[in-house]
């Protein structure tokens, strides 16, 4: 279903490249379908006729590309409770704490060493979020 719609919009892309793109967005598509399922459950249990807005928190170290997620949601929401919902994605910056010198530092990748002592022994303290923060019904 998504595949067809996706292809339909992208006639100009060669077949081989399409598969490549499709593979790239695929796990964001998994995330999108999870979001839709949670929203559908929510709408049923709250007897909400429609969801007007959904707010997501996606950590920069979560492995999810927010642009791809937006795109995947656009493909996937058709005929679901989220079809007309405004989607707000808030990116949560990555933050780690060094296990050697306890310094806290921002990092948007998983391999930045501690800027204070250059140790690679650090733990992520935020940026792994994959969460639906709020749902607005209206």
């Amino acid at each position, binding site marked *: *279903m*998504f*595949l067809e719609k996706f292809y339909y919009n992208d006639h100009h892309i060669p077949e081989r490249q399409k598969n490549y793109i*499709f*593979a*790239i967005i*695929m*796990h964001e*598509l*998994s*995330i*999108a*379908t*999870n*979001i*839709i*399922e*949670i929203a*559908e*459950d*929510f709408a*049923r*249990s*709250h007897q909400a006729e429609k969801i*007007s*807005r959904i707010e*997501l928190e996606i950590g920069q170290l*979560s*492995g*999810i590309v927010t642009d791809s997620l937006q795109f995947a949601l656009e493909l*996937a929401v058709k005929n*679901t409770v989220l079809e007309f919902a405004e989607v707000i994605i808030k990116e949560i910056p990555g933050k780690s704490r060094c296990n050697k010198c306890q310094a806290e530092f921002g990092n948007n*990748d*998983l*391999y930045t*060493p501690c800027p204070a002592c250059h140790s*690679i*022994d650090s733990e992520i303290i935020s940026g792994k979020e*994959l*969460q*639906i*923060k*709020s*749902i*607005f*019904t*209206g």
Partner: protein
Amino acid sequence: MCDTCGCSDPNTGVTYHKPGEEHAHENPHTHDHEHHYEHDHEHEHGQEHHSHTHDHTYSHEHNHDAHTHSHDHSHEHVGHQHQHEHDHAHDKEYKIKHDILDKNKMLAERNRGYFDAKKVKAINLVSSPGSGKTTLLEKTISELKQGLSLYVIEGDQQTMNDANRIHATGIPVIQINTGSGCHLDAEMVSKAVKQLDVADNSILMIENVGNLVCPALFDLGESHRVVIISVTEGEDKPLKYPHMFHSSDICIINKTDLLPYVDFSVEKAKEYAMQVNHHLQFFEISAKTGEGMDAWLGWLRKL
């Protein structure tokens, strides 16, 4: 709609096959998550439709009376399952703080509990396509099958090829074909394990779909995650695909017999991988020649 791979067409659904039982376990679309919507029953005795109720993980609601405001609400109770309702102009806001991967995490923990109870060690093998996972598995099985009880779950989008190769070694195997899905998830593993009928005190090898991106996000309930790279790939793979290396416990560097012919520095690769995950333990192996296999086999025997 499938919660995992987004497939809705039976032709792109997940199938489970055992070699030699080609059609025995075919499920056109085996995800049995409930699609409750549109399930209203009609009752002849004039009763109104009734709809099914669903689990509410959020336990209770606080109703803050209709004060309208357009700014962000700052009183979030992190870690609580409370839910706050606000009247937002005409829309109601529900702060649900729901983890998007909740369902998979829950099912993965269920698998983990099942494996623990049966003293089954589950190993999730992840890598790019073509890194030599299946060859490594074949060699590992032929060395270990005398002394240990082994089972294999093979994950691929299409074909029985890998399961047939494992079947030839004589140990029980089931093939999961994910269709268009790019990774295995906890639910697929749960179903496959039931069909495999895994004995207590076994090692269960799960060969994930060849993909260094998506499987990183999906816990299967494994006891160890093993990422494999081969020396024909770039030594900077750990930096390019950090999530997979970050989430793994073991890193196998495979095809070391080809080192004289390629520009691949094992030390560099290890250094990059350690930058991403300093807990990683390494094995340098040539599954083809058997070089370095002893250390890996020793690790498995000690599990």
